[in-house]
């Protein structure tokens, strides 16, 4: 057998084969074809852990591909992935379960006046599946000589405080049984050494948070989150024709926000035409919700039952589903090196959702993820001989690309809404960019004993939801969801809140077994990490399971 040890050393290691990481790989490889670039991802295959709406602003993608792939617009994959452009852009306000008002003209007016929420205009954007987009980018990257390896879960980063540089990452140990004992097939997690490490794991990244901690990066404001639950529904020919290709709907109000009597949650519903008689229906809810018995899937059920939505999807079949968090803290929640203000430190960069580049006024982060990948790829190429300065150069290029400027227009948006509630907060958010930065509580601290008024009578069928998400883990591996102190669940949580994790986990991972809330079904986990951010006692930690576990999204 040949010596494999050199294969555990790479020049540039990118953790996470999503849009951000792959954009970085493509840009770098284009700029310098001789650089060794390896992308590792925990999912079983390309796009398997990527979920979004998605409506994509074309700018960043064009910038990436125009330079890297000649005639990309003519390729079959481009035609397949970029389903269509938005032709009919509706923003609805739903006051109750039957009525709806189209407020797109108001949004368009806001856009003309350059008000924050005017950015909600989507006309001309691409409608696409991020899982397919990612899969395509993966093929492009591989074609250019980037190594994309799937099924490897990174557990930790080796950070040398003396030099301020990271030296590599550690993969997780595999082949342990439920009790953590070594099975006959046990293999210790390898260490991969790298000159430059790009962290592009997505929202609430395990490695990102560990690095932020170890390297002393700081956020000016806490990171805040939303969770999106989404179903891909196949509808009849008539229904789809009526809805129409190129049609996107964003809805506010019912069932998560109604005036005066509440509930007063942040977020909204979406409906996107995905071609082939498919409509993507989703519900995004800010994690700062109050009711302890709230489940975003219940809101999705009510949204699907709204007269406007129902007409298009009634009788349709849910062919795929999934859930994922969105980082919504915005500009002030971007982790930075206090010394240099860099998004990262020295030879480590934070990209995309790992950094929190979501513009909440647009409810979009995909374009910034790609933009950050382009910046990272160029910065790395420019600093290969001096990797101590990569993060700073990356941050400079991000500024030049206008990512921060765009983020600033939406700064305070989510915080304003969180602080003042949607009724006052939405209008106030217009002033958000002129307000000074202010901090609010973490999402998990917002839970109260209040009840969700619009709870559907039938329990949401989470089993089918996870089945169509095609999620799977080896069932004998140690549980990757850690309840830090089980006594808190019984003594404090159960009596007060009734263990909300059991209700809100979209995969039904948590269950009460003999009066003890437990992570009873870890193999159903969708890797959304909502539990880690919404447990009212901050008592759950999401750790990474064996590689290749988790959902297998195809068109989400």
């Amino acid at each position, binding site marked *: 057998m040949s010596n494999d040890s050199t294969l*555990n050393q790479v020049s540039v290691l990118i953790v996470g084969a999503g849009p951000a990481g792959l954009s970085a790989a493509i840009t770098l490889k284009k700029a310098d074809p001789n650089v060794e670039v390896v992308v590792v991802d925990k999912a079983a295959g390309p796009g398997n852990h990527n979920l979004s709406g998605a409506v994509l602003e074309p700018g960043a993608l064009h910038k990436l591909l125009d330079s890297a792939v000649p005639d990309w617009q003519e390729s079959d994959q481009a035609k397949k992935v970029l389903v269509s452009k938005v032709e009919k852009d509706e923003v609805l306000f739903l006051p109750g379960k039957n009525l709806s008002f189209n407020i797109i003209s108001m949004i368009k007016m806001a856009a003309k006046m350059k008000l924050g929420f005017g950015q909600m205009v989507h006309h001309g954007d691409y409608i696409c599946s991020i899982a397919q987009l990612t899969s395509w980018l993966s093929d492009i990257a591989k074609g250019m000589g980037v*190594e994309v*390896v799937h099924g490897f879960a990174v557990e930790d980063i080796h950070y040398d405080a003396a030099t301020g540089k990271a030296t590599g990452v550690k993969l997780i140990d595999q082949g342990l049984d439920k009790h953590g004992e070594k099975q006959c097939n046990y293999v210790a997690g390898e260490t991969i050494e790298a000159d430059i490490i790009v962290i592009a794991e997505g929202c609430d990244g395990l490695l990102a948070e560990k690095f932020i901690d170890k390297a002393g990066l700081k956020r000016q404001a806490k990171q805040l989150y939303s969770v999106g639950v989404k179903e891909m529904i196949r509808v009849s020919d008539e229904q789809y024709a009526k809805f129409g290709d190129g049609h996107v709907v964003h809805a506010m109000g019912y069932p998560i926000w109604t005036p005066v009597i509440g509930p007063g949650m942040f977020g909204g519903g979406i409906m996107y035409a995905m071609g082939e008689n498919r409509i993507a229906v989703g519900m995004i809810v800010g994690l700062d919700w109050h009711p302890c018995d709230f489940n975003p899937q219940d809101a999705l059920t009510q949204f699907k039952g709204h007269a406007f939505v129902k007409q298009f999807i009634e009788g349709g079949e849910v062919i795929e589903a999934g859930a994922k968090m969105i980082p919504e803290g915005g500009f002030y929640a971007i982790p930075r090196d206090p010394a240099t203000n860099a998004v990262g430190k020295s030879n480590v960069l934070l990209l995309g959702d790992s950094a929190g580049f979501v513009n909440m006024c647009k409810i979009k982060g995909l374009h910034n993820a790609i933009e950050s990948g382009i910046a990272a790829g160029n910065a790395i190429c420019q600093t290969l001989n001096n990797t101590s300065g990569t993060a700073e150069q990356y941050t400079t290029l991000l500024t030049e690309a206008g990512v921060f400027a765009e983020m600033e227009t939406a700064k305070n948006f989510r915080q304003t809404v969180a602080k003042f509630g949607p009724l006052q907060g939405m209008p106030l958010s217009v002033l958000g960019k002129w307000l000074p930065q202010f901090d609010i509580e973490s999402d998990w601290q917002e839970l109260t004993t209040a009840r969700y008024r619009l709870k559907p009578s039938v329990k949401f069928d989470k089993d089918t939801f996870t089945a169509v998400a095609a999620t799977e883990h080896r069932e004998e591996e140690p549980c990757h969801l850690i309840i830090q102190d089980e006594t808190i669940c019984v003594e404090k949580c159960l009596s007060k809140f009734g263990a909300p994790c059991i209700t809100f986990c979209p995969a039904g991972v948590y269950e009460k077994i003999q009066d003890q809330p437990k992570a009873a079904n870890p193999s159903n986990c969708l890797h959304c990490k909502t539990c880690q951010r919404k447990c009212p006692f901050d008592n759950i930690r999401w750790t990474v399971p064996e590689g290749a576990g988790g959902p297998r999204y195809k068109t989400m």
Partner: protein
Amino acid sequence: MSHYIVLVKQVPDVSQITDNAFDPETGNLIRTRLPSVINEHDAQALAFANQMRVLSGDKDTKLICLSMGPPMAEEVLRYSLARCADDVVLLTDRALGGADTVATANPLAYGVRKIVAEKFGGSSDYYIIAGMQSVDGDTAQVPAQLAEELKLPCIAYATEAEFINETFRFTRIISGGSQIVEAKKLPVVVTVAKYEFPVYPTFSRTRRANKSQVSQWTASDINAEYIGVKGSKTRVIRVFPPGKTTRKCQEITDVKELARILVEAASAEVKAQETEAEKKKHYLLPDDRPDKFDRSFEGLEKEAQDYKLLMDIFKEMGIQDLSQIDDAKKEQIVEKADGAYRVKALEDMLDGLKANTPTYSGEVWVCAEHDGTAPNSATFELLGKARDLADSLNVECGVVIAGENIQPMTKDLIAAGADKVYAIEHPLLKEFDPTAYRKAIATTIERHKPQIVLYGATPQGRVLAPMVSYRVQCGLTADCTGLAINDSSRKGQIACLFQTRPALGGNVMATICTKDSGCQMATARPGVMQALTKDYSRKGQIINEQVELTEEDVSLRIIKTEMGTGEVNFDAEVIISGGKGLQDRTNFENKIKSLMSAISGKTGAAVELGASRTAVEQGFAERIHQVGQTGTAVGPKLYVAMGISGAIQHMIGVANTEVIVAINTDPNAPIFKSADYYIIGDVNQIVPKLVQEIQAAE
């Protein structure tokens, strides 16, 4: 120093199958709609082989993976390289495509020969390890047929390997138990039934695998005998979606009524999987049909309709003899058929009408399986079917039985429908040894030339049938759920066995016919065919067969046989399953076992304990009892689910059950939508009452 050759196959990921994965017109799977993955059983075989290498402590051995498939199948070889393979070979060539199991096993065997010659230096010290079957074909035939081509012993359904005194001992599954065996000499083919410790890829190996060149051998490199469509011994006639089982979803409120349902379901005769229509339509040979133009026994509905239309046109035109039809008449017929067929097709059909002689001749046989004292129930079921087929064909129905001291069993076989019993009595046939049995059965078949031979799709039948069929050079269809005599007149095929079986994990049904063979062979699932009531007044003939066997013909040394113990018998007629609703292990065992003993006590049915995944995760039962997509798929007569919510992943695993009964406290439990009968209530209160009512039931 033993080497290893592991056979791996790329398959569509049937676990991710969706409705739109099938072409609505043809029923064919649209392969691009599903991701391609390594066959799960082969992944286990790879881990098994790797573990053997670890156990042997020998580091200088080679582990080589061999696959056959399109160029994209090199992905599964990279998968293997990333884990533990030292070298890989892909047989890929257009000429190899469209192959059945014979035309797959044959080139693979030639590939093995080439590997041994070129990479092992001709050494015979090696093992061939394969998954027990592929998840898309489910036939389990290729490894056994490969063994037969290479004249090697085959140890099927291994679950464990031990390394004792420098030799491997294998635990293998046999009907109703397990057995520890070792091969008398190497090489040997081992198929792996279940091995749950996957071998993990490493980062460095994965990178190296992605960079390495996979060696590809073409048809001319291996120069195999049977390849592609041409070398195949079977052909697929049609593919169609399986009939959807509709559940009754009836709520029961009275425990007494529930008790009655359970007893009735547990003691029901057999599952009637064949449709009534299939049973009623009793085949007649063309010469026995009242109307000589009658072609209502076509295997394809479309053909039958076309001929029906032709018959009507003949009547209208007053045609009584084919010689009356000249070119002008043909034009006329085509016109009347109104687009149903053109002249060329009509001429084919007219030629078909001339075909009246059955394509095959000889008796219809069943290969009996027994435990030394009595034939198993599958044998009697097959005999019921064979009797029916033989009557259709106007031939005799025979049974071939091999073993030691088998004479006492012959009268039961005659009573169950056999006209003739071919008894191969030999002390070396005392225990089932695939090589010795293959020789005994194949010799007898070659001597008497039956036209059909049926085997039970049991652990024994699924090894023996492929070896025998390969030896006598005829086609074999595995795991049939439907067997009927039909014609394919336009192809000149009269009175052929149309063999229908599920494929792709039960997601499609395929009808298959034998081709280029002297005999048609099939294995049939136990519990599908209907046994006849035994009639001991029936007369039959016992023919004692002499087959020369020596110790050399016995390939395996049997170390130990254990019946019933250790393994879970999911072939049981009744499975009582529990979920998390049963709260804890003690209660789980109490409730399930009391109901199990009540039902088996009352009906005598074999009863097994099952569990949902959550129940297993909570430690209520061992993993081996887990029913469902990631556990074992079962198909008993009666499945009782207590405190199980009915997640789709669980229900997929019980889809083939005859009667599903659910007990749950939650009135909205999804399981009620996929149960035949359900009762809303607490298991703790219902089960004790139910046990009483069952005992009191009539």
